[in-house]
C-alpha cells in the first residue's frame, strides 16, 4: 500500500508539485498574515504591561480640560501622582508634511508635552529608556526627547535640531522602550506643547494617574469618574480588553482571508486527485479484483491526498517563516511573531485540507467496479 502511494505521487511529479504549491501558498499566507497580527498583539500586550497608570481624558476627544482637574484628582484616596499632558498631532517636520511623507512608518509621530518633574516620577517608561542624552529637566523650553524610530526617520541624533510645525527644537535625548506606540512619541515640555497647540495656559489634554496599589486601580478610576463626570478614566486592563476584542476580530478576519487562499489550494487537491482516480481506474479495478475492499482503496487515496496536504503545509510553513524573517529583517517596522501554536495550526489546517479534499476522489475510487474497470483496454 505504501509503495503504491509513494510511487503514484512520484510518477505524477509535476502535478504533485503544483498541488503542493497551491496548498503551500495558502498556508504560507496564513503563517505570514497571522504572525503579523500576533506580532502586533504581543507588542500591544507589552505596552499594556508597561502601563501601570490610569489615563484620564475628556469624554469628548481632543477637547481640552482645565488643569485644576489635577488638584481634584490628587486629593482622591489611593492616588499617589498625577502627571498632566498635552497631546498634539504633528503636522510638519523640517517643513515636510509628516503624513504625506512616503518614508513614514505605520504609526504617525505624536507630540506629547509632559511636566518634566511629574513625568519623571510617574510610572512612564520613557525617563528610564534614554539611550543617548537625557530626559527633560525643569526649565527646558525648546527641548525635545525623540523616540528612536523618529530620530532614525528624520536622521536626527543627540545634539541635532529639529523643526516641528515651524518651531525649532534641540534634540536633548533619544529613547527606546521597544514598544512601537511609545517609541513614536516626541516628548516636549508641557508649556511648549500648549503653545504649539495654541491651548490656554490653564488647560491640558489629559492626565496620567499613578495609584498606590495596583489592585485598587479600578476603584480609583471609578472614583475619578465620580469626582469629574466629564472625564473618562481608563485603566490599562480596560484598554487591553478593548484591544483584545479588536485584535481577536482582526485575527479571525486574517484567518478567514488566508483560509480562502488555502481552500483554493484544497480544491487543487480535489482536482488533482480526481484526475488521478480517472487515470488509475484500471489499476483500481485490479486492486479490487485481487481482493482489496472498498475501505482499503478509500484509505489508499485518502492517505495520498493527506500526504499532498501535509507536504503543502510543510512547504507553506517554510515559505511563511523564511518570508517573514526576511521581511522583518529588511523592514524592522514590521513586527511578526511566529509561535509554535501557529505552525501547528497551519500544519493541521493543511492536513485537514488534504484529507477533506481527498474524500470525494477517494470515494469515487472506492466505488470503481472491477468488472467495468477491467473490461476495456
Amino acid at each position, binding site marked *: *500500500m505504501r*509503495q*503504491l502511494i509513494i*510511487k*503514484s505521487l512520484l*510518477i505524477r511529479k509535476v502535478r504533485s508539485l503544483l498541488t503542493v504549491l497551491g496548498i503551500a501558498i495558502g498556508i504560507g499566507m496564513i503563517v505570514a498574515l497571522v504572525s503579523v497580527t500576533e506580532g502586533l498583539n504581543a507588542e500591544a500586550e507589552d505596552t499594556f504591561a508597561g502601563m501601570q497608570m490610569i489615563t484620564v481624558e475628556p469624554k469628548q476627544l481632543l477637547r481640552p480640560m482645565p488643569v485644576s482637574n489635577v488638584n481634584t484628582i490628587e486629593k482622591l484616596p489611593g492616588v499617589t501622582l498625577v502627571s498632566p499632558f498635552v497631546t498634539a498631532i504633528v503636522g510638519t517636520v523640517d517643513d515636510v508634511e509628516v503624513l504625506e511623507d512616503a518614508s513614514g512608518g505605520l504609526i504617525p509621530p505624536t507630540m506629547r508635552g509632559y511636566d518634566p518633574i511629574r513625568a519623571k516620577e510617574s510610572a512612564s517608561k520613557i525617563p528610564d529608556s534614554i539611550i543617548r542624552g537625557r530626559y527633560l529637566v525643569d526649565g527646558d523650553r525648546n527641548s525635545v526627547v525623540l523616540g528612536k524610530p523618529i530620530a532614525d526617520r528624520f536622521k536626527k541624533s543627540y545634539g541635532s535640531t529639529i523643526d516641528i510645525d515651524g518651531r525649532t527644537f534641540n534634540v536633548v535625548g533619544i529613547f527606546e522602550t521597544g514598544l512601537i506606540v511609545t517609541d513614536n512619541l516626541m516628548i516636549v515640555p508641557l508649556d511648549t506643547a500648549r503653545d504649539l497647540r495654541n491651548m490656554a495656559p490653564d488647560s491640558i489634554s489629559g492626565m496620567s494617574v499613578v495609584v498606590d496599589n495596583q489592585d485598587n486601580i479600578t476603584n480609583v478610576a471609578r472614583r475619578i469618574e465620580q469626582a469629574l463626570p466629564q472625564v473618562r478614566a481608563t485603566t490599562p486592563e480596560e484598554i487591553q480588553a478593548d484591544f483584545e476584542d479588536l485584535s481577536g476580530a482582526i485575527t479571525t478576519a486574517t484567518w478567514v482571508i488566508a483560509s480562502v487562499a488555502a481552500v483554493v489550494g484544497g480544491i487543487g487537491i480535489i482536482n488533482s486527485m480526481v484526475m488521478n482516480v480517472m487515470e488509475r481506474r*484500471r*489499476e483500481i*479495478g*485490479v*486492486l*479490487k*479484483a*485481487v*481482493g*482489496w*475492499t*472498498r*475501505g*482499503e482503496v478509500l*484509505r*489508499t487515496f485518502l492517505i495520498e491526498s493527506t500526504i499532498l496536504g501535509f507536504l503543502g503545509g510543510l512547504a507553506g510553513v517554510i515559505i511563511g517563516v523564511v518570508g517573514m524573517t526576511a521581511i522583518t529583517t529588511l523592514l524592522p517596522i514590521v513586527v511578526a511573531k511566529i509561535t509554535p501554536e501557529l505552525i501547528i495550526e497551519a500544519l493541521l489546517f493543511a492536513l485537514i485540507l488534504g484529507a477533506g479534499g481527498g474524500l470525494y476522489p477517494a470515494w469515487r475510487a472506492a466505488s470503481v467496479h*472491477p*468488472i467495468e474497470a*477491467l473490461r476495456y*483496454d
Partner: protein
Amino acid sequence: MIELKQATKLYRLSERVEVRALDNVNLRIEDGDFVIILGPSGSGKSTMLNMLGALDRPTSGSVILDDVDLARLSDNGLSKIRRYKIGFIFQFFNLVTTLTAVENVMLPLSPVERNKAKLQQKAESLLTSMGLESRMDHRPTELSGGEQQRVAIARALMADPRIILGDEPTGNLDSKTGHDLIRIMKELNVEKGITFIIVSHDPSIASVGNRVIQMKDGHATEVPPPNPTDPPTTFASSA
C-alpha cells in the same frame, strides 16, 4: 468445490431490451479440476467467470463456494473471497505499472499483512518458482509478455487460493509463450491440486483440461475433452 445453481444474469440495456448473459446455468466444479470454458464472444463465458470469481452476483440462482452462497455476500464479503480463495489471471496481465514485479505479487495481501518482510519473502519465492529470480525489481514495462503473465500467476498464488481463474490468459501471447504458460498452470494443477478455470476462444487449449464447457447464448454444455491427437503440449496426456 464451486458450484453454479440455476444461475441467471440479466443485463438491462434499455427499457425493453434485456440480455440474458447467463441462462439458468448449473455447473459443479470439483477440487483439482482443470476446466476450459470455450465459446464465441458474447456467449456468456466472461459473465460466468465473473460469477465464479466473486466479481459479480447472479440476478437469480446461487454460486456456492465452500458451502457459502456468494450471491448473498456483501461487497466486503466478496472482496475477502477474492483475496483469500480465488486468484485471477487476465488477458492483458493487469499488473500495476508503477510497481516492481515483487511489489505486484505482494499486492493482494499488502493492505492486511503486517509483516512486510514475510510478505516480500513469499513474493520472491513465488517469482523464483516462476523462473523470474532476476526480474524481481523490474517494472512491467521492462518485462516481456510471457514474463508479465508469470508475474500475474505469482500474484494469483500469493494468498494460496484453491481456485485460479484465467480470462484468456494466453490471448495476448504468441503461441509458444502461451503454451509455456499453460504448462506452468498444468503443473500447479497437478502438483498442488489447485483448481483452474480458464476461459478461452482458442479450441487448441481445450485438450489441456480434464473438462471442457461449451458456452452458447448463455447456456453451458459440458463436452468431452478432445483427444490429444495433435497435442500442443507434451503433458496433455497426463491430465
